[in-house]
C-alpha cells in the first residue's frame, strides 16, 4: 500500500469519525492543531485504522502520532 493510499484511507476515517473534510487531510497536518480531532475522536480514529489497515497501534505509540504523516509512516512500517 502506498503512502497516498494510506493517507486516503485515513481521510475516509477522519471524515466518518470527526467530520474532517478529506481535502484538508495531508501528511503535514497535525491531528489536533490542524484537523481539530480531540482526544476521544483520536481513539476512534486509531481503532478504525487498526481495522482498516490490519495493524496494531498500541496506546503508547499513539502519542507519537502527531501528524497524518506520522500515522502513515507507522502504518506503512507495520503492514
Amino acid at each position, binding site marked *: 500500500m502506498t503512502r497516498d493510499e494510506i493517507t486516503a484511507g485515513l481521510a475516509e476515517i477522519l471524515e466518518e*469519525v*470527526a*467530520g474532517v473534510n478529506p481535502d484538508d487531510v495531508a501528511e503535514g497536518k497535525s491531528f489536533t492543531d490542524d484537523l481539530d480531532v480531540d482526544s*476521544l*475522536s483520536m*481513539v*476512534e480514529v486509531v*481503532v478504525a485504522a487498526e481495522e482498516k489497515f490490519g495493524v496494531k497501534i498500541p496506546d503508547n505509540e499513539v502519542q507519537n502520532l502527531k501528524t497524518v504523516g506520522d500515522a502513515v509512516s507507522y502504518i506503512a512500517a507495520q503492514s
Partner: protein
Amino acid sequence: MSRPDVVVTGLGATTPLGGDVASTWDAMLAGRSGVSALTQEWAAQLPVRIAAQLAVEPSTVLDRVKLRRLDRSEAIAIVAAQQAWADAGLADSGLDPERLAVSVGSGIGGATTLLAQDDILEASGPRRVSPHTIPMLMPNGPAAWVGLELGAKAGVHSVASACATGAEAIALGLDIIRAGRADVVVAGGTEAVIHALPIAGFSSMRAMSTRNDEPEKASRPWDKGRDGFVLGEGAGVLVLERADHAAARGARVYARLAGAGITSDAYDIVQPHAEGEGAIRAIAKAVADADVAKTDIRHVNAHATSTPVGDMLEIGALHKAVGDHVLLSATKSMTGHLLGAAGALESIATILAIRDGVVPPTINLDDPDEGLTLEVAGHKARHLEIPAALNNAFGFGGHNVALVFTRA
C-alpha cells in the same frame, strides 16, 4: 426581601406528535395519537409492540458527526433546548453566562447506549467500545450537553425522579431563581428508551398496555378499558426567568410559574400510597406555594398514565387538595408516557392551555370509569378561561411533584 416572581419566556419540544412545540400543540388540540406499532425486528418477541415514537428524527436536525457522540436522550434534549432558547430571544441578549443555569433530567438515562455498547463488547471485545460511551450514558449527560450548547455557567443539574423528573427539574429551576443563584434556568426533561429491555422490564411489571392491535387506542386514561401505559419518547424544555429580568428586556411571557410542591411517599418502591397521601400533600403544597385561590385553578393536566390504579388515586387526590371544580385533561392519551420528559411536556401543554384558553382533549375516553368523578375534556378540546392551572407528575420511588402556573 420579597421572593422574586418567576415566569416562562421560552418553550421547546420534540415529541411523538411533532418536532416542535407548535406542531405538538396543534396535534394535541386536534386529538391526534402519536402511538404506533413497533415494526422493528427486535420488537417481534415482546409482549408489548407499540410505542409513541418521535415524529421528527434528531438526525434531521443535528449534524451527523455530533450525533455520534450523543445518546438519543441527549440529542433530543439539545433539540428542545435550542428551540426554547431561540423562542425566549436570549441568543443575543447579552445574558451573563454566570447567571444562566440548566436543570434537565431523564428518568432512565442513556440505556440504549449502554445496551448497544454492551453488544459491541460481547461481539468484538473491549477495544471496540466507543470512547464516547461514558459521556453518552451518564445520567447528567443531557443537562451537561444543554449547558455546553448554551454556555451556562451557573451550574447544570440533573434531577432523577423517574416519571416525576421533568416536573421536578422545573421545580428545581424555580428554587434556583428564587434563591438568587441564576436569573435564567433552562429546565425540563428528556427520555429515549424505546428498546427491547426497558419495554420488557416495564412489561414484566405488568405496567404497560398490550393493546398491540389498536396502537392509537392503547393509551386511554380513566377509561374502563385501560390496561397500562404506552411508552413514549421525547423532550420538553422551558426557559424560566426572573420576572423583572424578563420585563427589563421586554421578553414575551407565556405564564407565571407560581408554585411547586414536592413530596415523597415513603411507602413502597413502585406502588403509590394507597390513599394518594403523598400526591395530596404535593398538590396542597404547590397551591399554598403559589398563593392562589383553589377556585382559580380551573384546569389540571393530570399525570394519568392509563394504569388501572394510578389514574383513580389521582382523582381522589385532586378532590381533596383542589376541589371538584376543575376541568381535567390527560394528554398522555395522545403522546404516550414520556417518563422523565412527561412532566416537562405536560407543563408546556398546561402553559399553552392557559395562554390560549383551551383545554386539550383526552382521547379514547369512550367508557369512563365510575371512579372518574371530576370533569374531563373528552374527545374534543374545550374552551375555558384559565387563571391558574396545575400539572401533576408522580414517579416510581414515591416521588410526587405538582406545579402551578398562572396567567402572565
